[in-house]
C-alpha cells in the first residue's frame, strides 16, 4: 500500500475522490481552499471523473452539490466556517429533507482565529441543523472519516459534516492512498414532492423522522467515542478530547509522563454524542475534563454532570487550545506541581501588508488622498489590508462593504444634503460572491456613494482560484466569461469607469468625477473598476521586470513612502538616512515615484539584472 505525505486538505480531497464522489463544489476560504484543488488534482491523477466547480458563493455551492445527491450520486461541498453562514439557508433545511447519494459537508474551522472574521464552531452549527458531525484529530483520520461520512450519509439518508480545523487542514502527514471506487452510478432523480419540495405542512412529519434518525445514529457503534484506558492512577477521573486538541492532549500527557495513567476518551463524533457513552460517563466518573475547540459542544451534551471545561472556567472559552494551554489545564485538573511559565515572545511580528506592486495599494492611496474626510466601507479579501493605508473603515463579512455604504448614506442623508463622501471597496471575486445583490439594492433604494471594484482578476488571498470573469473552470476547462462591467450596467448603474489604478493621475480624476456624479441631481451609485492583475499570479514575469525604482539623494527623509504608502519593498537606509528600495522585491510599478513629494524616486537603469 502506498503512502504519501499530504496536507490535511489534500488528504480530505483524496478521500473524496477515493469514495467515488461525482460532484464537488466549493468557494475558496482559509483554511479550506486546498480541498477542491486536491479533488481536481487527484481526479486527474487517478482518472476518476468528477464535476468540480468554484461556485460563486457557498450557498450556491451547497445547493448545486445537494441536488446532485438527490440523483443518487455522491456529492461534496467544502468551505471555511464562515462560509457555512452563507450556506446556512440550504444547510438548515437539508437535514429535514435528507439525501439519496451520500452528501458530505466539509466546514473548516479556524480556532484562534488565524485568518477568519470569527472563531465559530461548525459542530455547534451541525447540532443546530441536526446534522451529524465528525471531528478528525489528524490528516490521516480526516481521510478515513470522509469514507465513514459517505457511508453514514447513505445509510441514514442525511448530510454528514466533516469538521477539520486549521491545524488539521494545514498539517502534513503520511497518508495511505487507496484505489478509488469505480462504481459508475447514473443519475436518477425520483420525484417525491412531499419530501423534496416539502411545504410547511409536511415539515413536521419530516422533523419527527429526523429526530428518530438521530436517535438511531447515536446508538450506532461506529460513532461511539474510543477509550485509551488508564491504569488506575487517577480513579474515577477521565479526560475527553476531540479534534486536534485530542492529539495535542496525547502529546502533553506523554511529556508529563502520564500516558496510560488516566482514562482518555477520543470523541470522533461530537454530535450526536453516543448514547451509551453519555449514559456511562454519568455513573463512572466524578472528575471529567473536556478539551474541545471552540464551543463546549460535547460539554453541553453531558450537561447534567459536573464537567471541568469551558463553562466551568478551567478551559479558556476563546482562542486556540495550544499544547501549552492544554498542559496548564491538565496540571490544574490533576493537581500536579505547577511548572514555571514558558517564556514568551519579546516582540510582536510585523503586520500583514499588501504585496509590493499590488494595484490595490495604488487605488487605496488615491482614494484616501482624494477624500481625506471620506468614509470607507470594505470587506473580506487581500484588500482588507487597505486598513493599513487608512482607506478601510469597516470589514464585516463578504459583500458587506456595499450594503454598509448604502446604510451609511441613508443614515447621513436623513440629516441633510451635506452627506460625507462614501467610497466602498470590494474585490472582483467577492463582488461575484455577494456584492451583486448589495449593488442592486443600493441602486434600487436610491443610495449615493462611490464603489471601487478592485479587480485583480483572481481570488488572491486564498490561492488564485478563478472567478466567473476568467472563463476558466476549476479543472482548467473553458467556460463562458461573465464580465463585471456587464453586471454593473445591468444593475442600473449609470456612472461606470474602468481603468488601471497604476495611472494615479487618471484614477484620481475618475474619483473626482465619480463624486460629482454622486452629488448631482441625476446621480446615484458611481462605480469605478480598478483593473490591474495580481502581481503574485505570475512570479516568473516579475523576474523579467525591466525596471526597478531607486531613491536619489534628493530624499528629505519625510518617510511618506514608508509610513503612508507602506510598500514592503521600501525600507530605511540608516547610513545615509534616506528611504531605500529593495531591488529584489520592487516590481517597478512606479507608484512611489508618483507619491514622493520631492520627486526623489526615479526608475533605475538596468532593472533587476
Amino acid at each position, binding site marked *: 500500500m502506498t503512502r504519501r*505525505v499530504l496536507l490535511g486538505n489534500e488528504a480530505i480531497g483524496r478521500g473524496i475522490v477515493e469514495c467515488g464522489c461525482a460532484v464537488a463544489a466549493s468557494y475558496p476560504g482559509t483554511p479550506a481552499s486546498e480541498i477542491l484543488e486536491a479533488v481536481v488534482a487527484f481526479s486527474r491523477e487517478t482518472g476518476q471523473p468528477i464535476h468540480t466547480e468554484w461556485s460563486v458563493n457557498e450557498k450556491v455551492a451547497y445547493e448545486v452539490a445537494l441536488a446532485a445527491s438527490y440523483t443518487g450520486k455522491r456529492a461534496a461541498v467544502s468551505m471555511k466556517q464562515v462560509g457555512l453562514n452563507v450556506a446556512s439557508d440550504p444547510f438548515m433545511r437539508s437535514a429535514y429533507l435528507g439525501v439519496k447519494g451520500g452528501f458530505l459537508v466539509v466546514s473548516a474551522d479556524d480556532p484562534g482565529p488565524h*485568518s477568519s472574521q470569527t472563531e465559530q464552531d461548525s459542530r455547534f452549527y451541525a447540532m443546530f441543523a441536526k446534522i451529524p458531525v465528525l471531528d478528525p484529530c*489528524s490528516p490521516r483520520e480526516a481521510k478515513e472519516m470522509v469514507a465513514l461520512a459517505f457511508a453514514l450519509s447513505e445509510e441514514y439518508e442525511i448530510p454528514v459534516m466533516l469538521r477539520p480545523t486549521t*491545524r488539521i487542514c494545514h498539517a502534513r502527514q503520511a497518508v495511505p492512498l487507496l484505489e478509488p471506487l469505480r462504481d459508475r452510478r447514473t443519475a436518477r432523480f425520483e420525484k417525491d414532492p412531499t419530501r423534496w419540495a416539502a411545504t410547511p405542512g409536511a415539515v413536521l412529519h419530516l422533523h419527527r423522522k429526523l429526530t428518530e434518525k438521530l436517535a438511531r445514529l447515536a446508538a450506532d457503534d461506529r460513532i461511539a467515542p474510543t477509550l485509551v484506558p488508564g491504569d488506575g492512577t487517577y480513579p474515577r477521573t477521565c479526560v475527553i478530547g476531540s479534534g486536534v486538541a485530542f492529539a*495535542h492532549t496525547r502529546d502533553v500527557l506523554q511529556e508529563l509522563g502520564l500516558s496510560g495513567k488516566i482514562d482518555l476518551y477520543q470523541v470522533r463524533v461530537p454530535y450526536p454524542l453516543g448514547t451509551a457513552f453519555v449514559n456511562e460517563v454519568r455513573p463512572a466518573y466524578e472528575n471529567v475534563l473536556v478539551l474541545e475547540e471552540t464551543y463546549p459542544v460535547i460539554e453541553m451534551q453531558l450537561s447534567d454532570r459536573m464537567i471541568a471545561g469551558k463553562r466551568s472556567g478551567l478551559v479558556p472559552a476563546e482562542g486556540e487550545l495550544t*499544547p501549552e494551554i492544554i498542559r496548564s489545564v491538565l496540571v490544574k485538573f490533576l493537581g500536579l506541581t505547577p511548572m514555571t511559565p514558558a517564556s*514568551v515572545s519579546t516582540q510582536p511580528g*510585523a503586520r500583514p501588508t499588501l504585496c509590493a506592486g499590488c494595484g490595490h495599494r495604488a487605488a487605496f492611496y488615491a482614494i484616501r488622498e482624494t477624500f481625506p474626510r471620506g468614509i470607507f466601507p470594505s470587506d473580506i479579501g487581500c484588500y482588507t489590508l487597505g486598513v493599513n493605508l487608512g482607506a478601510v473603515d469597516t470589514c464585516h463579512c463578504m459583500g458587506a462593504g456595499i450594503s454598509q455604504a448604502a446604510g451609511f448614506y441613508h443614515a447621513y442623508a436623513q440629516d441633510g444634503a451635506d452627506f460625507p463622501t462614501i467610497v466602498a471597496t470590494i474585490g472582483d471575486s467577492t463582488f461575484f460572491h455577494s456584492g451583486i445583490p448589495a449593488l442592486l439594492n443600493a441602486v434600487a433604494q436610491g443610495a449615493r456613494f462611490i464603489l471601487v471594484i478592485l479587480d485583480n482578476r483572481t481570488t488572491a488571498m486564498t490561492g488564485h482560484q478563478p472567478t466567473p470573469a476568467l472563463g476558466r473552470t476549476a479543472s482548467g476547462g473553458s467556460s463562458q466569461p461573465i464580465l463585471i462591467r456587464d453586471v454593473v450596467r445591468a444593475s442600473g448603474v449609470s456612472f461606470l469607469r474602468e481603468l488601471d489604478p497604476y495611472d494615479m493621475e487618471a484614477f484620481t480624476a475618475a474619483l473626482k468625477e465619480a463624486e460629482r456624479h454622486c452629488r448631482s441631481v441625476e446621480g446615484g451609485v458611481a462605480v469605478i473598476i480598478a483593473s490591474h492583475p495580481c502581481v503574485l499570479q505570475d512570479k516568473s514575469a516579475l523576474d523579467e521586470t525591466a525596471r526597478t525604482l531607486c531613491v536619489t539623494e534628493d530624499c528629505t527623509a519625510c518617510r511618506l513612502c514608508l509610513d503612508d504608502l507602506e510598500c*514592503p519593498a521600501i525600507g530605511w537606509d540608516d547610513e545615509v538616512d534616506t528611504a531605500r528600495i529593495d531591488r529584489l522585491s520592487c516590481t517597478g510599478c512606479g507608484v512611489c515615484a508618483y507619491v514622493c513629494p520631492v520627486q526623489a524616486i526615479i526608475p533605475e537603469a538596468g532593472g533587476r539584472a
Partner: protein
Amino acid sequence: MLTLTRVLAEAAAAAGHEVITSETHGMAQRGAAVLSTVKVGPFHGPLISPGEAEVGLFLHAANLPIHGHYLRPDGTVFVNAPEAHGDAAVDATALASASGSPRSANLALLGYAAGKGGLFAGPACFEEAIRSVTSARHLGGNLAAFRAGVEAS
C-alpha cells in the same frame, strides 16, 4: 515555491519516520512572520510549545526575537543573516543568489543546517526529498541553492 516544511516532511517520511507538521496560510502570509513546525517521531499533534523545539531555521533574522522562545535552552539555531557570525549564521540569500536561484534562500539555509549535522538526517536525504517534489523546470535551481548551503557548512 518549495517550502522547507514540505521538504522536511518528505525527507522524514522517506527515512521511515512518522512526521506531522503545521504551517500558516492566508492573511498571515501577506508579509507577517510565518511560523511552521515539524515534528519527527511518534507525535500526534503538529504544534510545538515554547521551549520545546530542538532546532530552529530562521529565514529572517528579524524573526529571532519573535519566535526564538520556541527553542529549548540547548536547542540549535540556524539563521539567514548577511553578516555571518559563528556557526549559527549563514548568508543564505547571497548563497542562493550566487547559485542562480535568489528566491531559494530557504533551501540554501536547509543545506547549511544539514551539512552542519543539525537535522535528523544528512544532506543526501534532503537532496533526495527535494528531487521527489520539484518539477523538472525548477530542479536545477533548487538543487544548486541547496548544495551551495551544504558547501558553505
